[in-house]
């Protein structure tokens, strides 16, 4: 699995792809993006999920809360 190659673990993906990733329990940061600069599309997320989401080392099942500073 590819590491996110942008700083701060930022993944460039439209909201619809990010939502799909959560829906499928995929860590969007672990998806190989096929778009320009590695942008992640919905199709990339689906392919990742079908290609064995279990292998995604990100550890996120799409449901783990992260703290948000108030």
């Amino acid at each position, binding site marked *: 699995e590819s590491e996110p190659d942008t700083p*701060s673990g930022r993944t*460039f993906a*439209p909201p619809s792809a990010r939502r799909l990733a959560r829906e499928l329990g995929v860590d969007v940061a672990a998806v190989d993006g096929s778009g*320009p600069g590695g942008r992640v599309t919905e199709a990339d997320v689906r392919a990742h999920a079908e290609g064995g989401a279990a292998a995604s080392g990100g550890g996120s099942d799409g449901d783990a*809360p992260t703290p*948000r500073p108030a």
Partner: protein
Amino acid sequence: MVVGDVTTGTEVLVIGAGPGGYVAAIRAAQKGLDTTLVEKDAYGGACLNRGCIPSKALITGSGLAHEAGNAEFMGVHADPAVDMGKMVEWKDGVVDGLTSGVEKLCKANGVNLVAGTASFTGENTVRVAHGGEGQGSETLSFEHAVVATGSRPVQIPGFDFAEDHVWSSAEALDAETVPDRLGVVGGGYIGMELATTYAKLGADVTVVEMLDDILDPYEDDVKRIVRKRAEELGVEFHFGEGASEWSEAPDGGYLLHTETEAGDESTYGVDRILVAVGRQPVTDGLDPGAAGIETDDRGFVETDDRTRTAVEHIHAVGDVAGDPMLAHAASNEGIVAAEVIAGEPAALDRQAVPAAVFTDPEIGTVGMTEADAEDAGFDPVVGQMPFNASGRAMTTGHTEGFVRIVADEEAGFVLGAQIVGPEASELIAEVALAIEMGATLEDVAATVHTHPTLAEAVMEAAENARGQAIHTLNR
């Protein structure tokens, strides 16, 4: 459904009908959840009644009067007179239209509306006190709750909002007349929006600010443009001074006393004093502790990226949950809260929350500044387009300011923008979409932009970052 004899039950209880709460309630009802919205005061919260909406109405009215009175250069001669009572009446009509609209939208979506103040009595119950004394109360049980109780203006020692001449933003938006001299304590966005408004309405405005410039979170070149324009409008600034007290002046007005950190004192003659130094969360009367909800040392409710508090089935959204304390952030959080409660895979995964300041000129920002991008580890590239090179800006008579766009050098991803100038609040929307979509500078530049529009400046800034702007020189 009635649970027990005195307790009414609801699947989702929303507390507070501001832009966080009413949006959460409507979306929860849209998802088929039995939803109850409790509001103690007025539908629409601070935003519709004492914030975003009334301020923008007065900004329009004062702006039109001022602009028409200063348009000889384009052949328009007018000497407008402002009837402040009438302007506030118009503003009230706008507010009424919107707040009754919110009530109707709630009902149309099937939200149960309850008037009263909600206090937690446990993890799954609140008591709602209706209206004033002796109006009775009821207990409501809920499966999920959304706390959206908002914020109120911070009061500082020596300046009691109960005094007629000491204003919070709420009173500044409800004035019957324009004071001759207005003192403004605080040069944040609320202070600056109102200082500009009153300066245009003819008041002599004096702003005192503890820091050494206005609009703390913004970059220097952005601040400078707004400050310079305010000065042109006659606003006087005193930086590095904190308001300490007021006293009565012999002339019938008041003296606003300030003090520097070094102890130097000054006084300014004023007729009204607007204190706009920040907003604090509203949780009094709510008793969040009774439900096990934790607040931080400033009183904000802590939440995670699903808007959940430490008590998983109780969410908090909007100002009460802390920064960015903006109406649209509140609404976005309200939607996420409702969808999470409905079992959907929603989260606060927005890449960027835009923000606007409705000064003259406006400011619109979204995402990262160049410095932010560096801090985040990007290698940023920056492009800029000044409005004085924009054909559309020239035809509107407003050419101050610029569009700056920040992107990642390597892949070209748009990371942020800072816009100061005409319609900056609207122009920022395109860049927000660019950021969310993972658009690159090339994507923005290749999108055909209508001529002549201000939005072309976004495209030109993107081209400038790529070293090939047409309407401005490239570095």
